[in-house]
């Protein structure tokens, strides 16, 4: 198997199938550790991990925090509001300051797509994208792959339906790339206003009616509907949304009996999933949470292995970083 060579984990789009499998294998090894009574290993002892969450998050931050602690890393935690930080001080500046404290890995959550990529370009510390705008949430994507593999024994050839607000979902994008690279057939389902038709060009199928695609599905990943979408006029009402895309026991009758139901959390109960379904036997939502720690341990462990802690920092304050680019139109 190929070795891990990337300084950063920014997206699943950029990873090869081999790299995805490497991450999933590493996560499997760490999952065994988290089932032991003593859950800590010295893999990152002496390394420092900064959690830089510039957008509110409880679950992902807690999951990364536990993952880092179980690897024996030292931990530094920043929280804040993206907009207030970017106004006074650019995120790149913030990251350079964190790096100047000789931090090895920065786990970055930001409300703007592309921020982790820009920071990764500017600093030598490893960057793990913990969710950027509507772009990607690679560790959540890996969790979903890991959980499907665990429950179904395979990913290749499965019919996976991702249902909800695809347009604004970073989870949907990471899931889509990961699933396609590992050979699943992916259908994106939701209101036409929230499913960009360009997604078809990426290799996904598109459906506007869950009832049309549910019967063939092996896995359904329901996405959280942000409550401001109604105000933004993307949907006429939540009632109409639930009528078309909500999953309750009635709708489940049309599905395969071994359908697996996933959700990145937190669930709007009664909107995307009814409570019986969210808590029912087909739901693996809490397994996703458990697997999150193992997957994030794998991500931290692999990127930290690339970055030598004692390397000189590259901070170049005031440097105008304008790399040469390929011209676009020939």
């Amino acid at each position, binding site marked *: 198997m190929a070795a891990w060579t990337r300084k950063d984990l920014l997206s699943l*789009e950029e990873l090869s199938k081999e790299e995805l499998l490497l991450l999933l294998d590493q996560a499997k090894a760490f999952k065994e550790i988290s089932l032991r009574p003593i859950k800590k290993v010295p893999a990152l002892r002496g390394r420092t991990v900064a959690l830089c969450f510039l957008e509110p998050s409880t679950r992902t931050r807690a999951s990364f925090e536990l993952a880092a602690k179980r690897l024996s890393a030292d931990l530094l935690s920043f929280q804040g509001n993206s*907009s207030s930080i*970017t*106004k006074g001080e*650019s*995120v*790149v500046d913030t990251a350079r300051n964190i790096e100047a404290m000789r931090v090895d890995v920065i786990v970055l959550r930001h409300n*703007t*797509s*592309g*921020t982790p*990529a*820009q920071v990764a370009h500017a600093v030598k510390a490893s960057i793990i994208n913990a969710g*950027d*705008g*509507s*772009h*990607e949430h690679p560790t959540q994507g890996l969790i979903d792959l890991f959980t499907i593999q665990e429950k179904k024994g395979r990913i290749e050839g499965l019919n996976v339906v991702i249902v909800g607000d695809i347009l*604004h979902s*970073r989870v949907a*994008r990471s899931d889509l790339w990961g699933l396609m690279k590992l050979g699943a057939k992916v259908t994106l389902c939701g209101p036409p206003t929230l499913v*960009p038709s*360009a*997604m078809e*060009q*990426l290799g996904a199928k598109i459906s506007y009616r869950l009832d049309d695609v549910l019967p063939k599905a092996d896995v359904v990943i329901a996405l959280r509907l942000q409550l401001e979408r109604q105000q933004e006029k993307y949907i006429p009402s939540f009632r109409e949304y639930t009528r078309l895309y909500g999953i309750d026991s009635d709708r489940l009758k049309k599905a395969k009996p071994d359908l697996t139901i996933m959700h990145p959390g937190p669930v709007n109960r009664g909107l995307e999933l009814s409570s019986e379904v969210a808590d029912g036997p087909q739901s693996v939502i809490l397994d996703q949470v458990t697997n999150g720690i193992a997957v994030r341990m794998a991500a931290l462990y692999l990127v930290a292995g690339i970055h030598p802690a004692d390397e000189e920092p590259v901070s170049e304050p005031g440097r*105008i970083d*304008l*790399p*040469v*680019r390929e*011209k*676009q*139109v*020939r």
Partner: protein
Amino acid sequence: MSAKTILLKGGRLIDPSQGIDGQHDLLIENGRIAKVGKNLKADSAETIELKGKIVCPGFIDLHVHFRTPGQEHKETIRTGSRAALSGGFTTVCLMANTDPVVDSPTIVEFIKGEAAKVGLIQVLPYGAVTLGLKGENLTEMAALQEAGVVGFSDDGMPVSNAGMMRRALEYSRVTGLPVIDHCEEKELSGHGVMHEGLTSCRLGLAGVPSEAETVMIARDLLLAEATGGKLHIAHVSTVAGAELIRAAKKRGVPVTAEVTPHHLTLSEEALESYDSRFKMNPPLRPKKDAQALREALNDGTIDAIATDHAPHSLSEKETGLIQAPFGVIGLETALAVLLTELVHKQGFSLATLIAAWTHKPAKVIGSDRGTLAVGAPADITVFDPEQEWSPDAGQTASKSKNSPFIGWKLKGRVTDVWVSGQARYRDGRFLTED
């Protein structure tokens, strides 16, 4: 002051206004073109050999932002004029979205005063269409014209109310000046930061659909047709926009249009870098749009090339793709980028390119420049079509550095510029300090 006689010898002279393209000499007397012809002689003249160079009318840019008054940290008339000169531009038209807005003769007088102090090139202001760019009340267009504006535009805050736009096009007939519209339906562009399409979908960025532009172009064309007002469409960026203009011109609608160098040479994929140097409004579109814009320029659907030179400071542009302001600078690189990408690589007609910088934009604003006809003011740009160089962020004449072309390998560079017969730029150097 410009009584000197100058003879430009041995260059290839291209003047699309007269259909001239060939080895001709050019004589300047008293700040005006005195003679164009083969083997000219003038004993008392300062003779300048321009073998291997191209000699053409000084360029006119219909669309620049010099940020004065109000945002002089981005650009001043002096730094903007120097950027223009080094790119071969001898006339620029300033957009009215300054702070305060150019909606009264007082502000026009202020800008003219500042431009006179700098005195390097022709700096022509536009006036706003509506007071404060608010889209509510027309400006006193006749008074603004008397003060010296050459057109009207609310640029980045286009008139959204169709009834108001109708009035503007109707009323502007009293001046004969063009109404220049940045065509954008803001309800459609929303919070978009780049073109809405495959790339925005992949990157998870809010998009601006092509229809944000085309819906507004269609509206304006119909209103211009109905009112007879002179309409100029700023920075066309879409296939469908160009097609609408082409069809309107066929029907005889009084419309002209411009395109930017960046929309001709870059596409939406540039945003994959998340680099705000590629963020402008309208946004970079797919490659097929750039191709259609080249065709529209070639067949005359699009009259002029304008840079939409929009300086922003590094600290503003560094705030990330979503927060960063829209806009790129372009005066210093326009000629070199289009020579490289269109003429050298694709065999695009050099005369067509020069026409779009000279007599065609001159016609839009009713200027007597943009030509080497005998008697015209001697605004002359000379460039070496083969000189290779690379734009460097540390070397911009503009106060700002937000160019999408930094680091490109370019072929073709302006070497000399005369404005009204005065040498302003010689052998790639300014003749005045700072």
